[in-house]
């Protein structure tokens, strides 16, 4: 069994309550941080831990904290990004549902380290049950003196509030999140200035993912150096992986970074293999935005060595043969899944979620959706594949925020690795409506699956 830092007590009955959470050693990090450490020492521990942002970008958390401007007399804010909306990712929802105090404890320690007196947890609006859970847990913590005025008699004050979103994927982008928190449309801001200089209400602000903030707790308890011993190379610590798709046991797993991908998919400790005894066709390893990889490149690097679940190994080979760890949303496709249909589905998602500020993204995502729909329903031409390639190339890198890239990469990688499947849809317009392509040309035709036409 690998080491668990975040989900160690997930199965303990009542772990969502303050009482049981305390019995299991909860809030030790707050005591240690507030009573024995200075804010600078906490930032130093987080730097030493090598913790990298768990929301997707993988930027070192300690470094992000050290960029925070500290002008005299200006409020500073910590905002937790709980706007988990990346298709394939559901770890934050899981953590907040079952161990809300882990997030609250991390928020207190992190707010203290950054000198924030008011902090917000921005939760996506659809997670109303989780918002209720967090608000209850905050009330418990406040009643017990872990929040509010003069915490533990140290003179440190902190108010923690939960802010609901309104259902917009784009608000997971940190500057869009801040706009939304200010009561506006979630349009990402042009950077610089970065939030560390001018964030919420124009004040210095740090925005961190739920899992990053929860990971601060074991880092403070055991020390940054201990944390850095777990994992592999620059991918330190443990990571929550959300496993979904055609797996025997989908769910949230805490892994030590560096676990072989093959073991993650097939071992009974984790996903237990592909459901219904089928074969693996492809995976999306880090949430819908990262490149899709065929089974062979998922399990092995281009040079034949095993691929590992780490920031470096998953991106080994660049986009030609690699992908990204992203937010850890691991989606597995079995042999009967259609790559064209799934790519169309993802494109529809990005079109729906584009905020509309930048023309390449606003127009390009809709265009890609239409072309993919055309191919999927048997009306495509060979030129359409090249057209798709052209559109995605013109979106990537030409937008204010990374949503444009996120929309372009799934399309680019699907064409890169599964071009024959796109061409088959075009050459066999009738057949492609009745059966799936399978893993390759020799795949056994399957029964036509019922399909709902987009209205």
């Amino acid at each position, binding site marked *: 069994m690998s080491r668990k830092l975040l989900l160690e007590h997930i199965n303990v009955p009542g772990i969502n309550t303050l009482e049981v959470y305390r019995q299991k050693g909860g809030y030790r990090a707050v005591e240690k941080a507030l009573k024995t450490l200075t804010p600078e020492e906490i930032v130093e521990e987080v730097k030493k831990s090598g913790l990298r942002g768990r929301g997707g970008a993988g930027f070192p958390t300690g470094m992000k904290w050290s960029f925070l401007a500290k002008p005299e007399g200006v*409020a500073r804010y910590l905002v937790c990004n709980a706007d*988990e*909306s*990346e*298709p*394939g*990712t*559901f770890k*934050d*929802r899981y953590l907040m549902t079952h161990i809300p105090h882990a997030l609250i404890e991390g928020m207190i320690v992190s707010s203290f380290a950054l000198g924030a007196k*008011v902090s917000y947890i921005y939760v*996506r*609006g*659809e*997670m*109303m*049950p989780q918002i209720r859970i967090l608000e209850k847990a905050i009330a418990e913590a406040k009643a017990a003196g872990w929040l509010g005025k003069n915490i533990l008699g140290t003179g440190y004050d902190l*108010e923690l*509030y939960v*802010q*609901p*979103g*309104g*259902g*917009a*994927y784009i608000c997971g982008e940190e500057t869009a999140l801040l706009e*939304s*928190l*200010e*009561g*506006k*449309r*979630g349009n990402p801001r042009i950077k610089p200035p970065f939030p560390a200089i001018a964030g919420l*209400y124009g004040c210095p602000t740090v925005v961190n993912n739920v899992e990053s903030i929860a990971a601060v707790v074991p880092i403070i308890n055991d020390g940054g150096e201990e944390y850095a011993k777990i994992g592999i190379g620059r991918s330190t610590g443990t990571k929550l992986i*959300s*496993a*979904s*798709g*055609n797996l025997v046991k*989908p*769910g*949230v797993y805490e892994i030590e970074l560096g676990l072989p991908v093959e073991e993650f998919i097939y071992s009974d400790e984790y996903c237990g293999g592909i459901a219904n005894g089928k074969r693996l066709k492809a995976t*999306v390893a880090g949430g*819908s935005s990262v490149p899709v990889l065929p089974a062979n490149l998922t399990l092995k690097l281009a040079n034949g060595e095993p691929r590992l679940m780490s920031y470096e190994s998953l991106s080994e080979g660049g986009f030609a043969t690699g992908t990204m760890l992203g937010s850890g*949303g691991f*989606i597995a*496709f079995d042999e009967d*899944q259609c790559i064209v*249909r*799934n790519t169309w*589905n*993802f494109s529809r*998602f990005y079109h*729906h*979620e584009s*905020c509309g500020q930048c023309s390449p993204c606003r127009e390009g995502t809709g265009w890609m959706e239409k072309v993919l729909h055309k191919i999927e329903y048997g009306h495509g031409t060979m030129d359409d594949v090249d057209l798709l390639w052209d559109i995605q190339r013109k979106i990537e890198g030409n937008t204010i925020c990374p949503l444009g890239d996120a929309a372009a990469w799934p399309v680019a990688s699907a064409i890169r690795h599964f071009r024959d499947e796109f061409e088959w849809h075009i050459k066999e317009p009738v057949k492609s409506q009745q059966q799936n392509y399978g893993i390759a040309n020799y795949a056994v035709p399957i029964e036509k699956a*019922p*399909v*709902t036409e987009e*209205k």
Partner: protein
Amino acid sequence: MLKVEEQTPVEFSSELLAKFDEIKSRYPEGKHKSALLPLLHLVQAEYLWVSTPAMDKVAEYLNIQPIEVYEVATFYTMYFLKPQGKYALEVCRTGPCCLVGAEKILKHLEEKLGVKEGEVTADGLFSFRGVECLAACGFGPVLQISPEYTFYENLTTESVDKLIEDLKNKS
């Protein structure tokens, strides 16, 4: 889209206004516009949708222009700008849920309820629509029911039938 001709006047109850006040107190002086999204959720929970007069009232309460409320309410997908069924079912239609049968569930709901996506059943009880990823991909297909946003996971056509029967009996 925004129905500007809708003019049924709205008066917020004192209980609702007390909740508004509590939320407004969470933000620094002069930054009360931050309360807009939570306030619209409260309005929707009360009336099951967000009408133009209700938005105007919210603008008045926050001392901002009505357009500032309209632009937000139309940007975010959770706010209903026209009346929905008492139970508004929202089924995730994004990739991972489709891998495990979300499209079948949507089709089944359409047949079962006898209405198209976005329409309300004759008895006013149900409406449904497909929504983008609900962050429950490992437990798909999933649906949520507003205004409580209770979650139903690992759906099958049978479990959806049962859910609808239960809701009918409840009301």
